[in-house]
């Protein structure tokens, strides 16, 4: 069932994400600084710890009050220098907790959206690889309203992947699914990791992260309380 498919990784070995930001979030102050090296950086913490706000800042959907965000050699945010690259220019994919598929487009059009917006050439080979990997080839003509929760999440993953991002952000992508679905999708994510796609994966579920992450950033009430390998979760 697991096919030998290859997602072309960039020449560099590891994508470097550097985050050093501060933001006032209602009651508490979010202050996080870390560097991600490796395939999957897991952002771990209880709900309300500031995880979503953090990846929203990495995506460019939220601006830090103070700080720097850089991806490889490109500065995405630098409040001191007044730099803010808008989300549509960051080439950072985002898989949301609620999928957020476009209801007026069918699955095929949803998947093709990122390619069109980024003016990328058609890549039927990659399209085939991704639809195989996520097992969504038979859903192409359906509308989002007619998909199950698990199917929606897989399409959302495919949509983000097909926009050829440099980095993939995932915000509790399995959060709204039942155990059965989770069991179904986790292998796909492991596959993605093994393909070499750099990810920042937000979750409050330690078990998930133990399977997926290569590095953990633990967040508690807006502060990084631990930083290291998966052992940190113990």
């Amino acid at each position, binding site marked *: 069932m697991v096919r030998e498919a290859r997602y072309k990784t960039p020449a560099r070995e590891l994508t470097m994400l550097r985050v050093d930001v501060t933001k006032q979030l209602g009651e508490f102050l979010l202050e996080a600084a870390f560097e991600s090296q490796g395939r999957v950086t897991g952002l771990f913490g209880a709900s309300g710890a500031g995880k979503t706000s953090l990846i929203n800042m990495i*995506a*460019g*959907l939220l601006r830090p009050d103070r700080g720097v965000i850089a991806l490889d050699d490109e500065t995405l945010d630098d409040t001191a220098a007044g730099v803010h690259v*808008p*989300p*549509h*220019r*960051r*080439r*950072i*994919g*985002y898989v*949301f907790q*609620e999928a*957020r*598929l*476009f*209801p*007026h487009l069918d699955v095929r059009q949803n998947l093709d*959206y*990122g390619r069109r*917006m*980024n003016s990328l050439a058609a890549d039927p080979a990659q399209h085939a690889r991704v639809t195989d990997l996520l097992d969504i080839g038979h859903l192409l003509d359906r*509308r*989002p*309203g*007619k998909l199950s929760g698990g199917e929606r999440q897989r399409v959302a993953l495919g*949509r*983000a992947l097909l*926009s050829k991002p440099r980095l993939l952000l995932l915000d509790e992508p399995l959060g709204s699914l039942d155990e059965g679905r989770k069991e179904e999708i986790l292998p796909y994510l492991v596959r993605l990791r093994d393909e070499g796609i750099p990810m920042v994966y937000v979750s409050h579920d330690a078990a998930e992260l133990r399977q997926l992450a290569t590095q953990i950033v633990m967040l508690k009430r807006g502060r990084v309380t631990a930083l290291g390998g998966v052992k940190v979760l113990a």
Partner: protein
Amino acid sequence: MFDISPAEWTAILLSLRVAVVATLVATPFGIALAWLLARREFWGKSILDAAVHLPLVLPPVVTGYLLLLTFGRRGLVGAWLAEHLGIVFAFRWTGAALACGIMSFPLLVRPIRLSIEAIDRRLEQASSTLGAAPWQVFTTVTLPLALPGVLAGMVLGFAKAIGEFGATITFVSNIPGETQTISSAIYSLIQTPDGDTAAARLVLISIMIAMSALIASEWFARRATKRLHGN
């Protein structure tokens, strides 16, 4: 009873033309304003909102008179337009279209604004993470999802434009073939001896147009809801 005279046909066709032009021209402005009011916060927003709804509550004759003062041959803007661009509104069908467009504008904007507000902004966020620049977010996500609301607003605005009377007759008077719409024709007919039958015919036609427009508007509004749920 049902043989329609040439004068009545003229009024009907003129009304259709005026209302269609008014609606088509007003729609881009309506969409722009609806988007602004739905998605942006800025100083003076409530004043803009009130201004958009003004034609709904001002006496139509007042609106017509203000149009005359502004766009009439000797008006502030009208004089300049006539001299430099050769565009004349007063006592022309274009003026009737302007009057109808302004009077129907609030009815056009409202459904569009509501349908834009109903669109989940998180979808717009998702589209920007997929590489869509702000204008692309608008054309590929916001507008398609708001389309049924746009159509509902257009149809409602059209119905109002076709029935407009007070502002039209004040601004462009009642010239058969040029500015005599169905409403002004009925108005003239009820003052004419033996005009009652013809007036009744036009009244029936008015009602039919208005009813169809309202039903169509409802239908589009319902499709808007279905569309947002991905069906």
